């Protein structure tokens, strides 16, 4: 007898930074800062970024949301169309060369299994969209910058996609779109994404940090090392 769960769709939810690509949002922003057309601007932004790195690192370890709030201030004053262009450029020059080789076959296998591919990331939507298109993902959710009068304020729109919010988003998304979470998959690398992996029936830690690795071992989640 065919049950309800057999007819519902399944998905594979992916964190992006450190999971599918070996870079992260700081790296991406650094690319912009270093390649800024105005030399003065370039020096100022690069130096500012370098000086802030330890702070970002601490903020990220403390709470991913704190990190995001601190980090996205760097985008204040960017126009909307410029953000899209930067996103495409960052994808081509920074993200694409850093996609893990194993990520392609993982996504490919998953697609052939009939799972919808969905990215769930704390990165910006303008950077995530080209990646989602490139990997053939059905959908994605990413952080969005608040835009006022055509320019970014440096604040993120709520709800911020990070930590437990990713799990909350996945639950709601599954409810709205009719996904069977028990038969769905999720992939992440960081301890901050443990809630994301916890909401699906087939969690998998990829290149896990210490916290994620110990949790994965405790719960017998598969651990994958992509390169």
């Amino acid at each position: 007898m065919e049950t309800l769960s057999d007819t519902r769709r399944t998905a594979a939810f992916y964190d992006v930074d450190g999971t599918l690509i070996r870079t992260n949002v700081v790296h991406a922003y650094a690319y912009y800062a270093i390649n800024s057309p105005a030399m003065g601007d370039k020096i100022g932004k690069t130096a500012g970024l370098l000086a802030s790195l330890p702070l970002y690192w601490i903020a990220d370890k403390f709470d991913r949301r704190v990190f995001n709030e601190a980090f996205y201030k760097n985008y204040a004053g960017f126009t909307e169309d410029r953000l899209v262009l930067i996103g495409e450029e960052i994808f081509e020059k920074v993200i694409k060369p850093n996609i893990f080789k194993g990520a392609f076959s993982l996504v490919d296998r998953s697609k052939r299994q009939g799972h919808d591919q969905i990215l769930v990331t704390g990165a910006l939507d303008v950077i995530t969209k080209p990646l989602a298109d490139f990997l053939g993902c059905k959908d994605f959710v990413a952080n969005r910058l608040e835009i006022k009068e055509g320019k970014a304020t440096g604040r993120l729109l709520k709800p911020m996609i990070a930590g437990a919010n990713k799990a909350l988003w996945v639950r709601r998304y599954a409810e709205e779109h009719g996904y069977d979470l028990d038969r769905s998959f999720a992939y992440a690398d960081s301890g901050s994404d443990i809630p994301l992996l916890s909401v699906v029936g087939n969690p998998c830690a990829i290149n896990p940090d210490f916290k994620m690795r110990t949790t994965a071992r405790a719960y017998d989640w598969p651990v994958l090392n992509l390169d």
Partner: protein
Amino acid sequence: MSDSTTSYNPVRYLTEDSRPIYLHYGEDFLTHKFPAGTRVVYANKPMKPIDNQGAAIRYALNHPEGDVKPLYAQLKPGMKVTIAIDDISVPLPPMKTPDIRQKVLEIVLQMLADHGVEDVEMVVALALHRRMTGSEIKRMVGPEIFNEYYPERLYNMDAEDEDNMVFLGETDHGEKVQIVRRAAESDLLIYVNVNYVPMNGGFKSIGTGLSGYQSIQYHHNPQTILKSDSYMDPKNSALYNSNERMGRMINEKLNVFHIETALNNKMYDDQLQFLADPEDDWSAADELKFKSMQWTLKKLPRAAKRNFFHKVPADYGLVGVFAGATEAVHEKTLEKCWQQHAVPVEGQSDVVVWGIPFESPYNVNSIMNPLLVRVMALGYFFNMYRGKPIVKKGGTLIITHPCYDQFDPDHHPSYIEFFNRCLPETRCSKTLGKRWEKEFAENPNYIEMFRRGNAYHGVHPFYMWYWAENGQHHVGRVIVVGAENDHVPARMGWLSAKTMDEALEMAAEHHGPDHDLTVMHHPPFVIADVR
């Protein structure tokens, strides 16, 4: 060391004065004084090894079995050659270095070079086994070959790399034959085998070894397993027959040259060789050595014991090497295997006892998890017979193992899900296969861990479960002695006993006081030639 043809009698009947018998119990030993009249079947003495291995290998290459030319006569400059090699699942435990594969490869590679053959690749025939690590491969082929060829021209095959696997066709039974592309596209495919049980080698080497799930599923399934009357007896093994059909097709399409090596059963070095001998033949010094070993092991943490055991290689000797056509070669190898391992035994028993050791073909350098304990008992040890199983239909198996609920998450990730998700629902092989096999086989996580980590293929725990199907259908019950928890034996469908005495009482309650009792003293492996 002597030939098995001497007066040594491997089948003993215990008396009141007999010493206690020791049994493997995972990483420990148990001892028990079995009642007078108990039959104990020991391994034959190791056959005398060939002193000059190099000469024997060269002779085999130059004097092939079957209607094929010697290896040198098949070589010409510019040709493409692939050498497939058995993986770490054989022999058990791994042999002292140099491994016999290294010896064969050194000679074959030199011969290829002498004849101007430069396009040579070596592939470890993993099928759905885990990838060998670099250091394991280095140990197997020796540092010189490793440094020259690894990883570009010496590598693990990847059965899930669809670009590098090809279908050759279908057998008349509808079995689709899949093989590594490089092997299929070579002018010559050489297979280097290590043989120490009759189940391995022959058509199975390439038919299974160089194949993947798309092909292996045709014979690794409950139906075929149930039709196999001992995996160790190729003539009566449906599993082997399927491999034979596939192998014949491969041989029609490819130029295949088999090299098979038969090893003796010298699993222990001279200091520990007494462990293979009947306890009643032990000297006082042997007994003292055993007791101090047993005491020390008891004191060590399990992980330390495991590491210790995995670091002790076996002292196997080469007793035969044959090269040429698949069937003709394998026939010669089987002769040696039977000569070494077969022990004539009169009649079956109601109750049979096996001690389960720390290692199986699938946990080299890893953990013997509950599924592997089961496959060791009901898949391997049960099938170590020719003619009739050593245990009567409906009889009782008593095994000794702690049955710890431990799995290696890197080597056996899908086993964990199988054990915790599927087994609580059913133990029926057909149901398990129907409901979950495909899902596990195609799970992208398990495929990636298989391809890029050191995990067994996602489907492997199913094969382990099917593999024990024969034994499971034949015996009436399994009693495990010394399980450290209740849930592992319960999930396997086994009864538990705290001590061997309790297990023997349980067996006696079922079979009556006059039941026959046999202890099979593995390892070294014994194949019971039951009459």
